[in-house]
């Protein structure tokens, strides 16, 4: 049982549910909608992402949670016909405003994907520093230090420190995913987006990463999409529940501190979902 869960249970017993949004806010979403070729995929999402906390996006498939996540680091720019409306603020900056170049934005908001995807032609070392190199860092001493630091933060340093020149495929799935986390962390992002990071991993690897997530939040704000609500309950501080509406667009049903959403949700639909009434 992770420390997080222990604290959660203590809080339940003491009826002390702290809303993390009372603290500093990392990102603000206001009426965010995403449409593809005119067809809305997710609409009118409004909530704050608290800094140094884990925010989970949950909901059945089709509810638009991944679509919403990808709008945060402007990955939809790659898709022709995609339109993101509303306002997304990263600190003082408008994510879709003109003043941050998208490459800078993406080094402030990192991403970890569903399936581990280390760059196949690079060694482990090169994978971890790839982000730094993209951003123009060349000094070996800095790169070496960053490798050690990120791999330690991803709880992978001890396992691979002796074979940094090895190839990505020599790692297990869970190790590869932690490598990708280290890679994302190396560019020192403020926010780390995670798109179902453990869905392709076995239970032990999943547990390791969930523990890692709890450790990482002191260093970086985390937004995680997961289709596994138990996972959301285990790792997150704030949970947003999305559901596909009648117009086949995802909409935000409820956003609340995790403890509250899972024990006393306001919306009956949330209650139905967490009780497993629909998938």
């Amino acid at each position, binding site marked *: 049982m992770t420390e997080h869960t222990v604290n959660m249970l203590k809080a339940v017993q003491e009826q002390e549910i702290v809303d993390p949004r009372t603290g500093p806010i990392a990102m603000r979403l206001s009426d965010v909608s995403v449409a593809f070729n005119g067809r809305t995929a997710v609409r009118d999402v409004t909530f704050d992402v608290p800094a140094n906390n884990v925010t989970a996006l949950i909901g059945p498939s089709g509810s638009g949670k991944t679509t919403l996540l990808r709008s945060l*680091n402007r*990955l939809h720019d*790659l898709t*022709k016909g995609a339109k993101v409306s509303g306002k997304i603020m990263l600190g003082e900056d408008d994510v879709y405003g003109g003043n941050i170049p998208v*490459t*800078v934005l*993406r*080094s402030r908001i*990192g*991403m970890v*994907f569903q*399936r581990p*995807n*280390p*760059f*196949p*032609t*690079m060694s482990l070392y090169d994978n971890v520093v*790839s*982000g730094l*190199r*993209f*951003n123009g860092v060349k000094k070996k001493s800095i790169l070496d230090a960053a490798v050690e630091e990120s791999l330690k933060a991803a709880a992978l340093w001890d396992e691979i420190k002796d074979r940094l020149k090895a*190839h*990505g*495929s020599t790692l297990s799935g869970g190790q590869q995913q932690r490598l*990708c986390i280290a*890679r*994302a962390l190396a*560019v020192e992002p403020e926010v780390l987006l995670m798109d179902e990071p453990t869905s392709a991993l076995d239970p032990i690897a999943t547990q390791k990463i969930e523990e890692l997530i709890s450790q990482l939040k002191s260093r970086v704000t985390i937004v995680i999409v997961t289709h596994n609500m138990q996972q959301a309950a285990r790792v997150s501080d704030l949970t947003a529940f999305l559901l596909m509406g009648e117009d086949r667009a995802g909409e935000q049903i409820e956003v609340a501190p995790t403890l509250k959403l899972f024990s006393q949700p306001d919306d009956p639909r949330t209650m139905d979902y967490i009780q497993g009434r629909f998938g």
Partner: protein
Amino acid sequence: MVATAKTSQTAVEAEGRRPSASTRGAYEWTLLIISGLFGLVSVWFVGTIIWQSASTFKSQGFYIFTGLNWIPGAGTGSPSQYGGRAMIFGTIETSLIAMVIAVIIGTGTSLAINFLLPQKMKTFVATVVELLAAIPSIVYGVWGMLVLAPWFLYTIGPFLSSLPGGTAIFGTTVAGKSLLLAGLVLAIMVLPTFVAISREVIGAVPHELVEASLSLGATRWQTLWKTVIPTARIGLFGATTLALGRAIGETIAVSLVCGGVIGSSFKPLEPGVTIAGFIATQWGEAVGSDQIGALFAIGAILMVVSFAMSVFSRRLVARQRRAAAVV
């Protein structure tokens, strides 16, 4: 179309269904015998070419590689000279020009098709590229000769000559025909083949890798150069060797535009010869086993080079595949 069915072979192996000698029936024997027949044909193929060229190699020795003169001795009383240097150099020069142009433009084209063109156009473009790759080389040759050569004569040639040191570096064409033109025609001819393969290979790079790269703050070009192309490099190498193989072996497209003159200078604008082109143009005039044997001889050189390239590239691809493993 990449053959990805190695797994099916191992799966079938596991079934233990490989027939041993005792269980071979009519079906297996038929397959074996016909395959043996093909093997025989291929051996005869290599053998014929080597056999017919043997006497020339004996009489010319290394001259066939280094010599410039191609003078049959029949009737003149002096021994024949069959020097293949001009053809060998011509083949190398035209192929090199062709490959440099084709790889650079072809890679840029494949990147553009995959990343710059709208999604909807992709199947259309893929079809067009495959059709272009099917156009026979003689069409390229005729177009090169009747359309490009005059252009070279009246525009490119004077332009290059007017550059400082122009004529000295580039030479002058004969009616526009030159090794440079041949290289250009080869490049245009080989481009669709190269693009057909490289487009597919670049498209096969998982999109997640592209997204991961961009998510680290890389620019679009950094992603293409540092992530996509390295990931696709095995396939790109295969496309290159395939195109190169076509280039060195091409006969008609080259013979119509290279000028057909055995020269000692290999300046790009000068006319020249390639091995395959020379064989084709000289064939009609070759009389007697002496001259024909000489043509076989340079054909043998071409054959050895082509086979060596094929073996080499296969080994390299296999080694790269093993090194990269599957991630």
